[in-house]
């Protein structure tokens, strides 16, 4: 059973593209990975780290430079276009001309690998199309033109198209780019639900790290210099692999909150005491932004430093050698701190 869940794998895969005059530009030379059925895998990496090149190689849009990709044990490059079209479905960021099609017609295009020469849909095809539209929750829009959908709904329709294709492996290139928060969360939850419910392997690239850390079963972290790290999300977070994903000093990863922050550089220090975690977090956030480094645990230097005690959001007491001031809002506190600068 364990072995059956792997659908796509590669050992020491070299990816990149051919430049003119038979030259080759290798983006990565040594990638090894396995993609599992029933799991949502998120590919994270900075711009230019080779995410799109990797996804194109895995969806057979471009050949690998070295090594081979195995799809259910067969070498990807030996499979015909039609065979691949029934195994790997893609959702891309490409511009389409589909505004004049209804959602139903668009999703029905996903049946092309299964239909005959003229693409006529039989009863089974129609059933699959209807189920796909149902599964992404836009059944009420089935007869609406694509042009009349919101961006989030358009993306759902493209996902329905890929579901109608009935591929065990689905690859999505930044499916949540350009979407608002609500749609991003909806799309990611939807993909996670589909991976589990339909036992599909879903691989997507994204810049939306917060959502990926919440919903991805596995992460693939791609870095330009160091290749790729794969693993279950929590293992990678707690091993510190995300700390070095963006190899920049100005950025650091907050393991507790699962997100990236600009590194703090401060000129002054202050001791902070707060009654709960949330208050402490946002107090430090405010102080960091205003050039204050925060000390949470007092030491021998602390008595000389100013001290801020936060009892609740409207009781902020600033203790300095000259006396104690109490503020009712962060607005007034920050104003006072800026004056002292």
């Amino acid at each position, binding site marked *: 059973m364990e072995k059956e869940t792997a659908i796509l794998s590669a050992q020491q895969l070299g990816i990149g593209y051919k430049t003119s005059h038979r030259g080759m530009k290798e983006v990565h030379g040594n990638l090894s990975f396995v993609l599992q059925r029933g799991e949502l895998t998120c590919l994270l990496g900075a711009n230019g780290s080779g995410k799109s090149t990797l996804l194109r190689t895995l969806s057979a*849009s471009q050949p690998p430079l070295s090594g081979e990709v195995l799809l259910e044990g067969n070498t990807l490059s030996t499979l015909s276009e039609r065979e691949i*079209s029934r195994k790997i479905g893609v959702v*891309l960021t490409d511009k389409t*001309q589909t505004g004049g099609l209804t959602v139903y017609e668009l999703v029905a*295009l996903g049946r092309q690998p299964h239909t005959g020469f003229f693409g006529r849909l039989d009863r089974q095809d129609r059933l699959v199309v209807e189920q796909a539209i149902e599964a992404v929750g836009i059944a009420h829009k089935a007869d609406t033109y694509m042009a009349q959908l919101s961006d989030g709904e358009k993306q759902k329709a493209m996902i329905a198209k890929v579901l109608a294709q009935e591929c065990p492996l689905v690859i999505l290139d930044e499916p949540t780019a350009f979407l608002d928060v609500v749609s991003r969360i909806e799309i990611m939850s939807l993909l996670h639900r589909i991976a589990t419910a339909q036992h599909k392997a879903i691989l997507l690239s994204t810049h939306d790290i917060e959502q990926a850390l919440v919903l991805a079963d596995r992460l693939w972290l791609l870095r330009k210099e160091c290749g790729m790290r794969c693993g279950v999300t929590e293992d990678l977070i707690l091993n510190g692999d995300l700390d070095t994903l963006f190899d920049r000093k100005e950025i650091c990863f907050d393991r507790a909150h699962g997100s990236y922050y600009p590194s703090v550089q401060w000129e002054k220090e202050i001791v902070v005491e707060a009654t709960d975690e949330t208050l402490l977090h946002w107090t430090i956030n405010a102080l960091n932004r205003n050039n204050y480094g925060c000390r949470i645990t007092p030491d021998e230097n602390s008595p000389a430093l100013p001290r801020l005690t936060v009892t609740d959001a409207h009781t902020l007491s600033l203790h300095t050698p000259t006396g104690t001031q109490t503020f009712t809002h962060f607005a007034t506190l920050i104003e006072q701190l800026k004056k002292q600068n």
Partner: protein
Amino acid sequence: MNRHPSPQREKRLIISLLLLLLALCAANLWFGSVQIPGSAVWDILCGRKPEKEVWKFIVLDSRLPQMVAALLSGAALAVAGLLLQTAFNNPLAGPSILGIDTGASLGVALVMLFCGGSLGLTESTTLSGFTAIIAGAFIGSIIVLGTILFFSTIVKNNIMLLIVGIMVGYITSSVISLLNYFATAEGVHSYTIWGMGNFSGVTGDQLPYFALSVSAGLLIAILLIKPLNALLLGDRYAANLGVNIRLTRNLLLIVTGLLTASTTAFCGPISFIGLAVPHIARLLLGSSNHNTLLPMTMLCGAVTTLLCNLICILPGESGILPINAITPILGAPVIIYVIINQRKIQYFN
């Protein structure tokens, strides 16, 4: 613009267009420089002897071939335009805008001008002469199409590609002008007459060849409906749906070349039909689905050119208007309408 494609609406639309087509066919046979009563036209079509023997000749050997030529050219050019718009992912593509009919014209010019005008498409044209003209037109249009296709791999921006097409068209026109300069007066004369566009150029003897090449092109276009629909998603999506992109593109190139070349060779370069008619069809139908759009485009193309031809022959005794004087008056407003309303028109978004 909230028209949803429903099978009932489609059926009504197709029936009314077919009736319109029939009416236009009748009108094209009825009107002309010589006044022939409708009853006489009917008698001639039914094989009965008319009052005057010359009427039979006019209807069967002049008006009928002209009508069929207009009908076929319209369907051919409109379908060529639709294929180009889908293939280039660009609603403003068309055989005349991309310079493809200019390419065909160049081929025709080379043949006509350098055979001293003896190969002009007159009634006395020999079969070999006309094969040469068709072959010239086909090669010319395929060369321009290939050039545009090559540029499309470099220039990704649609508008920029259109401008490249227009430039290629200009260069081709220049070459034609230069050829004219060196050609004989007779050659230039027959080329100029041809260049104004005229459906009456096709004689009854030539008609079967014309019909054959156009039907072949239209048939292949119908066979490409499934990959055409996939191409609406763009190349990479289509490839993922199992479409052989290179084969499909090559076939589209050949079909577009064949359709444009045959109409251009027989009737001259006719502007705006290829660009405007697919838009008329999409607007009427309310769908970009080629299953219905392709037949609809053929039908609309035939109706439009029959209408244009009718307008051309309406002056009656004072002569025939050149077809290219009429098509822009009908076609250009459609394009302007589409561009102005592009936010409201679904297929543009």
